[in-house]
């Protein structure tokens, strides 16, 4: 039974603009999937369909969450199945105190007081904000707000967690902290759907990537999707910096059949290469080196210019 099943989902805005066009995909329980796409690709719109907040006559039967269709009249029951973390934390933290915000979902689920208190404590601990119950959300830092917003959804203990750009606009430390929390959730087997532009974080967080541009352009393992750089560049997306670096290294004769996607992958790749080369890596300039580098750099440079 898939956790999320979307079949031929279509949606138009009030002005007639097509937001989603025959979108179809399935996500199995325990899978961690990244949803990428350029701005205006319909990613956030898709997210709001998953718990029935946005819906149309045709969309109702197009989505099944944990094998049940989404009934717009029963949106209040959806948090048991799917929790959604919005992009702007200020939209998620609407109560006077953080403790109230984290308790908001469990109270609405009709849980008793002790259970609500346990969940508030657990959720805040999980995001590293233990003891923040009586803090005023407005006074939290950007990173704390983002983790607090996540806690307000974790407290509902939904089976599926869907997030809209969780690492956007965070400083490096806050970004790392948030990625760490998401990795823990992934390791615990939580079903994750993460909308993100942060391609460098995807290899750590998702084993599968769906590329959306109003319709599903590509869907497959993270490595396969990032191998198709032409497709990504064409629709205005990026590949991880490490992958770009190793593509350049290939031009210097570095033997690399499978480009690494992350620092961890790069370390493994370099270690294996050096072990196979008497403890050394041999780089050299040959007659195609410069043209190769230019070609690789232009690919990403052109992409940047094309989308400016």
């Amino acid at each position, binding site marked *: 039974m898939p956790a999320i099943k979307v079949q031929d989902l279509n949606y138009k805005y009030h002005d007639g603009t097509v937001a989603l066009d025959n979108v179809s995909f399935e996500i199995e329980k325990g899978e961690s999937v990244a949803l990428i796409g350029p701005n205006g690709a319909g990613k956030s719109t898709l997210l709001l369909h998953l718990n029935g*907040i946005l819906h149309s006559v045709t969309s109702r039967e197009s989505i099944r969450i944990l094998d049940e269709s989404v009934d717009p009249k029963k949106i209040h029951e959806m948090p048991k199945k799917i929790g959604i973390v919005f992009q702007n934390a200020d939209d*998620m933290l609407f*109560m006077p105190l953080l403790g*109230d915000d984290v308790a908001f979902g469990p109270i609405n689920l009709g849980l008793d007081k002790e259970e609500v208190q346990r969940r508030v404590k657990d959720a805040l601990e999980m995001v590293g904000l233990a003891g923040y119950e009586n803090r005023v*959300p*407005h006074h939290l830092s950007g990173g704390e707000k983002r983790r607090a917003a996540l806690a307000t*959804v974790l407290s509902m203990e939904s089976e599926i967690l869907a997030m809209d750009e969780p690492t956007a606009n965070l400083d490096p430390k806050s970004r790392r902290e948030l990625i760490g929390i998401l990795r823990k959730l992934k390791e615990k087997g939580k079903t994750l759907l993460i909308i993100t532009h942060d391609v460098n974080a995807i290899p750590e967080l998702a084993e599968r990537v769906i590329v959306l541009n109003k319709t599903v352009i590509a869907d497959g393992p993270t490595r396969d999707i990032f191998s198709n750089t032409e497709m990504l560049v064409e629709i205005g997306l990026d590949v991880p910096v490490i992958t770009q670096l190793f593509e350049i290294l290939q031009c210097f004769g570095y033997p690399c059949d499978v480009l690494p996607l992350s620092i961890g992958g790069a370390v493994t790749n370099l270690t294996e290469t050096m072990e196979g080369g008497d403890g050394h890596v041999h780089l050299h300039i040959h007659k195609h080196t410069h043209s190769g580098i230019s070609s690789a750099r232009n690919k990403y440079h052109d992409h940047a210019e094309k989308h400016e």
Partner: protein
Amino acid sequence: MISEIDIYAGLSSPIHRWDPRLKVISILTLIFSIMLLYDLKLVIASMLFAIILVYISRIPFSFIAGRLKWVFLFVLPFLIILPFTVIGEGVEIAHIGSITLNFRGIESVEFAVMIVIKALTSVMLIFPMIGTSRMDVTIKALEDLHLPNKLVQMLAFTYRYIFVLSDEFMLMERSLTSRGFKRRSNLYTIITLSKAIATLFVMSFEQAERVFYAMRSKGYKGKVTTMHEFTLRPQDWFNAVVVCGFAIFIHVAVLYGTLEGI
């Protein structure tokens, strides 16, 4: 960082330690009691009582005075107009065009002074009522007192988002300043600030929509419930008896005329 609204909520005083539910009920009772009072001497006595409460609460008088001046400006027209309009025929003292100015005697002046003092006293009492507990605690107290949930929600959202909106406006103002805008007493300034405020309204509407989505995503069905625990101590009841007792006393005093001879 403490919000201005909660700036004196962290002090320690008997009023701060008073259960917020009994505090709100007792002081509101006193405010309504004063509003229904039509005896200058008792109104002055009520004002003295309010000053004592403020003194006990340790909220600085300068802080309260700074806010009362705006209330005074608002009620000042009563002080000017009432002596010429309310009671009796009066004595004509001036004639400007079709308007005749009649002075209605010392009772009219007393009446005007009484209205002004009542207004100032009522507003003064708001400070020990609201300013001695953090706003979130007061909101929870109101929820516990079964104030209509819609009103509690409105208060809670106002408290939560007023700072967000004021920050947005501050950013907008900085953006204007960085592009050479300077506040002046001219039409251009008024138009520019009006447009900025209008944009803020649009932004707040959009944010309200997003917040509503977030609330629905978390199972919101129209009612907001929070977790809170209030416990009543004998001291809380004693405070309530003193304040409510005074609220009742001033009306009993009117009924029996005990202060006639004073």
